[in-house]
């Protein structure tokens, strides 16, 4: 990998969004993910190489450090922001088909439930691992999930619930989605959710943390 891509990977790993960004202090005044991506493109690096050799491995490292409790969420969010700044320059190549997303992930907190912190963490980590994420927000009914799946064939769906009373809402939504899309992959999570509940409502995968969801999707995309 070229020095430039190494530098880009470092900028993403440590959350250096652009030259003006004050964080991290050790990279103050240096080019960030935005400038480095632009430079790499100008020097002829393939967009797919920028993504596969620099951005995704950097986010993998970030995910790994987070799993090992070596960094907190803000560092991960900054890394995701840096990744976003780089992706801004790569967007036209997705549209032209020069590079491909790993897939589309549709995520929402189920109807009746307003909790969004866990959902946001999951979407951020999945986006960082190369998936296109559609975040439907909170209090999401079956109709909204179904409508979005129709518009994004082949997508994987994620659902979150934090209340015991909204677990039943999750169960209903999974059933409604299954009726329309019997083979769609559905990942669920949230404080009261268990493996047993996952089996009971015929979801495909339960993850107690965002990293588990990323790992599952990686295996799906492999």
């Amino acid at each position, binding site marked *: 990998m070229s020095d430039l891509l190494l530098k880009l990977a470092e900028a993403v790993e440590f959350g250096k969004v652009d030259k003006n960004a004050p964080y991290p202090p050790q990279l103050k005044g240096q080019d960030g993910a935005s400038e480095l991506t632009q430079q790499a493109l100008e020097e002829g690096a393939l967009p797919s190489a920028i993504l596969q050799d620099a951005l995704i491995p950097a986010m993998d490292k970030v995910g790994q450090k987070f799993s090992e409790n*070596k960094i*907190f*969420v*803000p560092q991960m969010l900054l890394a995701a922001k840096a990744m976003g700044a780089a992706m801004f320059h790569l967007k036209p190549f997705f549209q032209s088909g020069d590079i491909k997303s790993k897939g589309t992930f549709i995520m929402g907190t189920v109807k*009746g439930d*307003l909790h969004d912190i866990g959902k946001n*963490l999951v979407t951020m980590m999945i986006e960082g691992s190369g998936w296109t994420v559609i975040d439907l927000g909170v209090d999401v009914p079956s109709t909204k999930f179904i409508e979005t799946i129709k518009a994004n064939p082949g997508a994987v769906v994620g659902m979150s619930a934090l209340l*015991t009373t909204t677990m039943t809402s999750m169960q209903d939504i999974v059933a409604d989605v299954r009726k329309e899309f019997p083979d769609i992959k559905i990942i669920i999570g949230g404080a*009261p959710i268990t493996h047993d*509940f996952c089996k009971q409502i015929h979801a495909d995968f339960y993850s107690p943390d965002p990293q588990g969801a990323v790992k599952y999707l990686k295996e799906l995309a492999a």
Partner: protein
Amino acid sequence: MKYKKLVIDNPQDLLFGLAPKPVKTPRGLEIGGGQVYSELNFTLPTMSINENTIKEVNRHYAEIAEGALQRALDLESKGVVLEFETLLEMTKTPQIGIDIVKIMNDICEKYYQKHGLACEIRLTPNDLREFERPALQRTSKLLEPMFELFDKGSLAGGDLLSIESTGGKEVSDSALMMCDIKGMFFAMIVLGVRDMQFIWKKIVEVAEKNGKIAGGDSACGFANTAMVLAEKKFIPRVFATMVRVISVVRSIVAVEEGAIGPEKDCGYEGPFLKAITGIPISMEGKTAACAHLSPIGNIASACTDLWSNESVQNIKLLSGMAPTAYMEQLEYDVRLMNVALREGKASASLLKRLLEQSDIYTDPQALVLSTENVIRISKKLIQGDTYIENAKNGALEALDIIEEALASGQMKLPEMETAYLPLLRADIESIPANESEFVEMMLPVLDQSHFILSEYGL
């Protein structure tokens, strides 16, 4: 903040079971009047709430109240509070909540009349306004069902009124994840304080009209969320500690507006409120592990007046139904505290010291809850001409306390935690004390599509 002097300024006087302004209830509790009572909180097992299940929902609440009060009676309890923290459907359709209050109140009345068991219901409706984004804090139609439940639910037997209000949460959720302390100040000390002034005026009006008790609020959605995120190692504990300390300035507004306590269980800002205002408080710790984990299991009870389990589902355990089992656990905890109180100041102080010392240096969130540090921080929290200045002074004092504990070697924190200390100090020091200046500073860096300033009177 209207308080300029602490009601309790000696850490030794900040003790469980004793509040300078105890609260007497109709069915015989004197909260803060010399003993600690259990406060049981509970919820449904996994089930939907709709017209087809409503009979079953009601049956669960009757079973919970009956089982818990019978166990309290068997254990010779001196008194119990049942906290009915409603589920969303019960506030959206207030009649559901009102009917459940009636059901539980009849059971409380039976135990009071037949057995002399002092028992009350704390009614805590949901703050439905968070269903709308951006939230219409002052003009939302959702205020109607909320206040119908406050009104009719209190008449049905909800003698203590509380809420976990959510003003400012539109900003705090992302500020928490970014460990943005300035964002948290904006969320809690600008938006939160203003919303507390609005909502608590209305709650106090209902309480006064119906002859009920305006209890208190909790910064649950802010500071407890921070604590739980820190427990999951998502954010630093030192950050969660700062959030807790500044939450005092938000939650005290309920008292300024006329709430008299008991402060709500999940508000770990309670000890500060007790020191500053003298109201009785409710706290939760080790016996709330059924609902969430925490680093303050013992120290949380050092100066509490009600001792709570936060929430437990009505499911079957080997011993019986879970709320009944938790009633027993709470009763044994409070029995110990009450025996210490009966034996006199020396025993009570010894028990308090053990409760504090067993946790104090294991986590900065525990450190700031020792009664000595509560008094020290409270003295700073009341200094200042604006709520922002109050919060700044308190937070900076808490930072000093953490740094002193680290320097003395009594507390150890990993480098990834301590690295945040200078950043937090610099950020807090940079906040102007004047609200208008602070709002002006923050607006360009906040996503203004998330909140409506006019809904906060700005």
